[in-house]
């Protein structure tokens, strides 16, 4: 190597020939949520700090500006929640919109991965729409999939009346933008006692049909509320038939799965499939198994905006994977992570 790349950043064992090894993957995980970009290109895992890279890092290759698609994922706004974990969830959603509007280049659109509201009430949906109208995107579009909080009492009827135009079944849909095929799935309805999230046979059949004619080189983005991969079953963090859905996507070279529900960033890479969960804009939840229950977590005053945020996703044609950048509403002070040496008495 002639440059100053840290040897630790080089991939030593690339068994899958996909430009990523286990050690590199673990480094990715460590970066998640800390405002750093993780991307893979040319067999070398690279990282750049968020401040220096946002909007440009993924497109650092010459001429990468053309054909590049960028969009934003937000999740779990829980409008109507007013308990100790966050007494003003509308304000933090507005801050998320301000964060989107501060991006150097406006994203094409926004994906909201569910739990727009706390209790499926019409005025709560209204607030979400009003706040998101203030977001600057090139298409002016917001694509929604419901969370379990959005389909209370009516099996999602109100949700579909508001956002279901052009969708099928419980609200699943797909669309193409910038050469990427987007698939919105619904896994929060018809849940069975003792089970996890559920897609159901009709939706799986539709999915198989939906991707049948696509070239394997088409980048795929799947978005749904509950993680499609098994994160932590004792808390219901997984989807019973998620693996079957993913089996239809195995032949594709780039699959990105974006979920919410767990109110924290987690990443996993399996072959060509990149799994990612987003922060909430309302309140954090505990790491799997670290608390008696997965409910809202109250953090010390001043810490809340470090654990809420947005995810920016960028696709650069010709790259293996989409680049994901998680940005908290407020960056944690670097000093918070340094520890002063203890003075000896």
């Amino acid at each position, binding site marked *: 190597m002639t440059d100053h790349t840290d040897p630790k950043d080089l991939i030593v064992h690339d068994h899958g020939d996909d430009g990523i090894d286990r050690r590199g993957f673990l480094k990715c995980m460590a970066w998640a949520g800390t405002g750093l970009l993780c991307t893979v290109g040319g067999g070398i895992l690279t990282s750049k700090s968020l401040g220096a890279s946002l909007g440009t890092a993924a497109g650092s290759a010459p001429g990468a500006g053309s054909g590049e698609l960028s969009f934003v994922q937000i999740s779990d706004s829980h409008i109507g*929640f007013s*308990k*100790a*974990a966050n007494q003003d969830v509308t304000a933090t959603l507005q801050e998320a919109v301000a964060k989107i509007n501060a991006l150097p280049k406006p994203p094409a659109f926004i994906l909201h991965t569910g739990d727009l509201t*706390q*209790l*499926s009430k019409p005025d709560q949906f209204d607030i979400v729409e009003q706040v998101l109208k203030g977001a600057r995107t090139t298409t002016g579009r917001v694509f929604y999939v419901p969370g*379990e*909080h959005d389909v*209370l*009492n009516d099996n999602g009827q109100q949700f579909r009346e508001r956002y279901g135009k052009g969708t099928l079944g419980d609200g699943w849909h797909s669309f193409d933008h910038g050469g990427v095929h987007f698939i919105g799935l619904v896994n929060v309805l018809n*849940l*069975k*006692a*003792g*089970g*996890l999230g559920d897609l159901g046979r009709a939706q799986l059949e539709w999915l198989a049909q939906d991707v049948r004619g696509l070239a394997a080189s088409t980048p795929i983005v799947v978005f749904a509320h509950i993680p499609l991969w098994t994160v932590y*079953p*004792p*808390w*219901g963090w997984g989807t019973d038939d998620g693996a079957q859905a993913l089996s239809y996507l195995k032949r594709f070279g780039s699959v990105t799965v974006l979920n919410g529900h767990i109110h924290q960033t987690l990443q996993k890479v399996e072959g060509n499939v990149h799994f990612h969960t987003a922060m909430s804009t309302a309140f954090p939840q505990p790491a799997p198994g670290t608390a*008696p*229950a*997965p*409910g*809202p977590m109250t953090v010390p005053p001043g810490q809340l905006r470090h654990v809420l945020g947005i995810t920016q996703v960028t696709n650069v044609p010709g790259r293996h994977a989409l680049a994901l950048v998680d940005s908290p509403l407020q960056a944690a002070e670097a000093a918070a992570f340094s520890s002063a040496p203890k003075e000896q008495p």
Partner: protein
Amino acid sequence: MKPIIPATLTLLAGTALLSATVGGPVAGPSPATAPKAAPSAGKTVQVAIDNFRFTPAVLTVPAGTQVTWRNNDDVPHTVVSTRLLFKSRALDTGDTFSYTFRAKGTYAYFCSVHPMMTAKVIVR
């Protein structure tokens, strides 16, 4: 199943006592006159929803008992019979739902929002 019954009855007595002490919007006659006995028909028994759990998870009551669930969590839950014999609306924090069990049998139920939350009522 038989060895479980005495323990269930003990737990049940504790629950009845709790509902009498805590009070709240509970209909029906006060069980205060016989606090250590299992509730008889026509009484109300409470099930608490705390930390994504129904407590007690197994409740044994005589036929005719009204069971009242109260959600103490910061998130909405539901009480839904797996055979759809009863189904609450979404219960926000502090909301309650009641159902009177008239026929003997085992009634499995769950939270349709968080389906890993399962429990049952046994009517003897």
